[in-house]
Structure formats: C-alpha cells, structure tokens
C-alpha cells in the first residue's frame, strides 16, 4: 500500500516540478547573461541587477519570517536584530587582514586579524577562496544568529502573542545598542562602518582566460537553496507540527507536540536564515552599520510577508520582489518633478522628493485594506496547480503542490 501512496504522484505534479526546474534553469541562465553578456555600462542593467539582488535577499528574509509568523504562529518582531547579527558576523570574518587597520581605524586594527576568504584563498586561489570563504562566512553568520536565538528563546518563547512580539522587538533594539557600543569596538567597530569585506563583486570564476562574474547568481543561489530548505521543512512532519501549533496550541500539545521544543526549533531556524539574509545584505551593501537595522526594517519585512500572504512561501517571494522593485525602482520617477513620456517632459506639481513614498504607502494601504489576506492568502503558487486549473480539474489544496523556485 505504501508504494502505491508514494508512487502515486499526480502527472500534473510531475510536469509541474519539471516546469519549475526549467524555470529555475532559465532564470539562472538569464542572471548569468545579466552579469556577463549584457553591457555592464548600461545603467538599466545595473538597476535591474541591484533590484534582483536585493529582492532575492529580502525574499529569503521574508520566507524566514513567514516560517515563524506564518507557519508557527509565533508573532516575533526580532528579524532585524538577527539580520544585524548575521551581517556583522559575516563582515567580521571576511575583512582581509591588510584592511583591518583601515577599517578598524579607531580601534587599532580590531581584535580579529584573519579573514576566512583570504585563508582559503591561499589554498584555493583567489576566486575559489572568495566563493568558499563567503559561503563559510554566511553559514557562520547563520549559526551565530541561531545561537543568539536559542539563548533569547529560552526565556522569551514562554510569552504569548503580543508580549512575545514586543519582547523580541526589544531584544532587537538591545542588540543594536550592544553592537554600537565602543566597548566592543575591537570586534564590531562601534558606530563605524565595517567594509572592504568580500562582496558580490568578488564572486567570480575564471574559465581559461575569461572571468565570469557570478555576483547576481550568488545571492539567488543562496536564497534558492535556503528557501528550498524551508519549503522542505514546512512540508515535512515537523512543518505540519509547526502548523498545528499555529492553528491551536492546546490541541497541538494534547496531541503530543512538544510546544517549547517546536517553537524553539522554528525560532532558531528562522533566525538562522535571517542571519544568512543579513550576511547577504551585508554583501549587497558592501558596508555594514548597525543603524539601519532598526525596528522599521522588521516592519517592512512584515509588510512584505503580509502583502504576500501569511503562510504562503511563494507569496512572500513574489511580494518581496514586487515591493523592492516598486519602492526602489519603478516609483522613483515620482520624486523627479515630472515624467518623461514620448520624449516630452511633463512637469507635475506634486512630483517632488518624497512623493514616491507617499504614493507607495497609499498603495500599501490599498492592498492591506482590499486584500487583507495578501496576494496569495495561505495558498501557494504552483505549476502543478496551474496545470490542474488549466485542465479544469478540481483544485487540490496547495500544500502538496510544488514550489516554483523564485
């Protein structure tokens, strides 16, 4: 009977997975072309690359927050704090040794005097060192964030709903103050920027005599991998247990789900990926400072999660790409005093600095008010589901559906 069960994958699902994989491949080829074939001098390619990178990073962070808020029902607002930890942990271990005196200019070159990409670079060559070193630093970043989460979680996860939210929010603020403290300056550089560490531009491969840049593929690679792991987790037995806690804690406990253990797992894993996201953000920004990781960053992530749909991974991914593109790219013309259409410039009186943000917040309000369950609700966008719908069959709840990658 068991064989029947596992073997009985619907044909749509097979096709769906195939389409999803093809799409990922196509996406990666496109990203590769973006970095290497399309002219780098073209500003719009630059802009597209920027938005895609940042979108991928936020997609990962949103999914990690969704795991906590959407799938486990833990209302936590500490995401920016864990991203901060990840960003710092990454940067600290990836600053080349000879740059320490410049970066830690007020702290005698800092306490840590080696760089993982560099150490590896001595063995694997510069490119290999940068790639593997960045990877290891990212994992370290995730682990440090996870360790912090485990320590915070022990006391804090006993709290319920809004009290948990405010406690985690407070924790994020505490972390920010600690990282800005001059007392830890030898490690965190106090209020000053960490910079010069391995960033996306350093990720490249050399085939023969040509160098191929992988700066855009890299964040997508990490984000896809991380999101894939989260998807696997959510669809596993543990993921179901998380959802049972979200739906009804008392019933979950009565059915043998250890609340503390599962909440802790979800919290730690979510923080791990928030840390990874923070590390990627550090790579993207090329500088790290604690100041931007304030509570408004958490709110922004939460907004994306809710716009995408709480409990929908594809929703989070879609929403973060849309959000980042809209806020950082598509709406920028609103700031510039007018629009240029068909080679004519129209001056529009309201269009001045800040109008973009006003319009953007109005758009957000409209979405929140009229699509209060978000773009996707708690459903997933799946190719299998689409095929089914196209065939006019009855839609099956999407939990079993295949993920589309990004």
């Amino acid at each position: 009977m068991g064989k029947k069960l596992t073997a009985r994958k619907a044909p749509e699902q097979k096709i769906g997975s195939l389409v999803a994989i093809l799409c990922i491949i196509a996406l990666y080829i496109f990203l590769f072309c973006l970095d290497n074939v399309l002219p780098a001098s073209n500003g719009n390619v630059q802009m597209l690359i920027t938005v895609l990178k940042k979108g991928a990073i936020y997609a990962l962070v949103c999914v990690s927050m969704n795991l906590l808020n959407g799938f486990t029902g833990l209302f936590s607002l500490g995401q920016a704090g864990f991203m901060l930890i990840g960003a710092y942990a990454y940067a600290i271990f990836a600053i080349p040794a000879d740059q320490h005196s410049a970066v830690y200019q007020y702290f005698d070159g800092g306490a840590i005097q080696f760089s993982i990409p560099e150490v590896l670079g001595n063995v694997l060559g510069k490119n290999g060192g940068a790639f593997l070193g960045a990877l290891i630093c990212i994992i370290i970043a995730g682990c440090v964030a996870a360790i912090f989460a485990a320590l915070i979680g022990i006391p804090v996860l006993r709290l319920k709903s809004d009290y948990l939210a405010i406690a985690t929010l407070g924790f994020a603020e505490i972390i920010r103050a600690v990282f800005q403290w001059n007392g830890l300056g030898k490690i965190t550089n106090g209020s000053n920027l960490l910079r010069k560490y391995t960033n996306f531009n350093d990720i490249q491969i050399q085939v023969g005599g040509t160098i191929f840049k992988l700066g855009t593929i890299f964040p997508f690679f990490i984000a896809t991998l991380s999101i894939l792991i989260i998807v696997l987790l959510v669809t596993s037995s543990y993921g179901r247990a998380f959802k049972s806690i979200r739906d009804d804690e008392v019933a979950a406990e009565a059915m043998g789900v250890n609340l503390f253990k599962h909440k802790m797992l979800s919290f730690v894993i979510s923080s791990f990926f928030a840390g990874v996201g923070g590390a990627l953000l550090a790579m993207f920004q090329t500088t790290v400072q604690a100041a931007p990781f304030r509570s408004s960053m958490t709110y922004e992530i939460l907004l994306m999660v809710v716009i995408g749909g709480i409990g929908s991974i594809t929703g989070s991914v879609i929403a973060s790409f849309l959000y980042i593109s809209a806020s950082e790219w598509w709406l920028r013309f609103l700031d510039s005093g007018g629009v240029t259409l068909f080679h004519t410039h129209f001056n529009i009186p309201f269009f001045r600095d800040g109008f973009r943000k006003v319009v953007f917040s109005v758009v957000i309000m409209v979405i929140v008010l009229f699509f209060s369950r978000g773009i996707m609700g708690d459903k997933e966008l799946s190719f299998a589901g689409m095929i089914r719908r196209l065939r006019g069959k009855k839609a099956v709840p999407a939990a079993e559906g295949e993920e589309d990658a990004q």
Partner: protein
Amino acid sequence: MSEKRHVLQVENATMQFGGVVAVNNLTMEVNEGEIVALIGPNGAGKTTAFNVITGVYQPTNGRVSFYEKPMVCNHPRGKMEKLYKGQNPKMYVHEHTLAPTPDHITKLGIARTFQNIRLWKSMTVFENVIIAKHMRAKHNIFSSTFRVSRKEEIRMREETEALLREQGLWRVKDDLATSLPYGLQRRLEIARALATDPKLLLLDEPAAGMNPQETLELASFIHDIRDKYKLTILLIEHHMDLVMNISDRIYVLDFGSLIAHGIPSEIQANQHVIDAYLGVVEDE
C-alpha cells in the same frame, strides 16, 4: 490478564484557582479495559479534572498515577499555602513534585478530545490525523526535512490511511477539517486521538450536539474502538442514556466534589445524584 490493573488513579486531586476550588479532593480510578463515565451538572469540575489528568493544569494538591506509576504530583506551595481551602495539604509534601507538560502525558499513552472541538482549522482531515503520529515517529528535524527518514514518513502515511479508512473518513481526507459536518468533526477528533496510540482515551462530551440516533451509534462506536484498540476509556457526558448504556462504572461530581460512584444502576438510584441533577438531567 486475570486481575485488572489500574490504568489511572487520581488521588486527592484538588484544583484551586485563586480562591475558587474547582475540583476538591477527587479520588478515582479506572481499570484496564473499562469504560468509566464522569458525570455531574454544568460547572461541576469535570473538564477541570480532565485538564488535571492531561497536564493542562497542574493540580494544587494530589497525585495522578498512570499504570500505577506516579505521573502528576503536587502540593500547595508559595501563595497557595495560605490560600489553600482543600483537604490534605501536607499529604504530598514529601513526594517529588511531578508536572509533565500535556505532550509528555500524551506520549505516555493518554489521549483526549475536547468539549468544544479543537481541530486544526486550516488543515485537511489527513493532516489533522498524521500530526498526531508526529511524536512517535523516529526522526529528527534534519532527517525529516531532508527526507532521510522517508520510510518513517511512509509508515506514518500508511498508518494514517488505515486509521482513516477504519473510521470512515478516508473519502473526506482532503477536505478541510472544519468543513466537515459536526458529527464527522467529533469522529475526526476521536480518530486524531487514536492516532497517538493511546492506552487511555479521555472523551469530553463526545455526544454533545448529537441527535438520539447519532448518540445510539456513538455508543456502539465507543464499544468498538475500546475492543479494537484495546483501550480504556474515561468519558464526560451529559446524555444519561448513553452513560448508563455504555459505562462500566460512573463517578459523579458536584461543585468539585465526588458525591457518588458505582455501577450505573446504583447511580440511578442514588438520592444525592438525583438532588444534584434535579431537573437538569439533560442539557441542550
């Protein structure tokens, strides 16, 4: 199995909320294979007793043993030492305090249903049942996430399928739990409890909201599952027909205290019980 073992022993259990004594010095036992009913008027403390047994509340005083091994034990402490209104405050002072969480107790082999159905709303019937299998599966978060313990997952799915088929819920397996009709929801809650492989099943008003026909079916259903899964059953119920029909023994609570216990015919004749119920034999 000549002599019957005590599956559950509740000794001197008192549950006090602030100054309110919800359960007072309750002592009861359930033997292997029995169907025992806990009855009493509304607000008598029946569900509170269930919550004490299943670890939702820690009793203020008293002990609960499962298969003659202490499982829950407490005595009045801290603020409660002065506030305590129940009996035997010193009785368990020298014993180890035991306060397992509900999931721990479920793992020992006690499963329950809820008075107001508590199914997982956003999940399908199938998922509702398979989650109850989660705790006994041999896996950890890594093996489960990376599908290393796929065999375990397959086993869980098979067992869930078997259980759902037995309970006649297979054809609705992909429906949302909350979209089922009321009777099926109750049935699903029992199925979910059974999925935890319990030895003792606690049913909190399984017949609430059912018509006489359904109630009649429920009686035989309870008998069936008792025999089939070798269960011991403790239930709270207001439908006296059902209670009298299926119970081996009955405990009667009123205002938190035990006022009577015995076989159904004894209870029916007991004046205390009649007084307590006076006119409110059947609710709803």
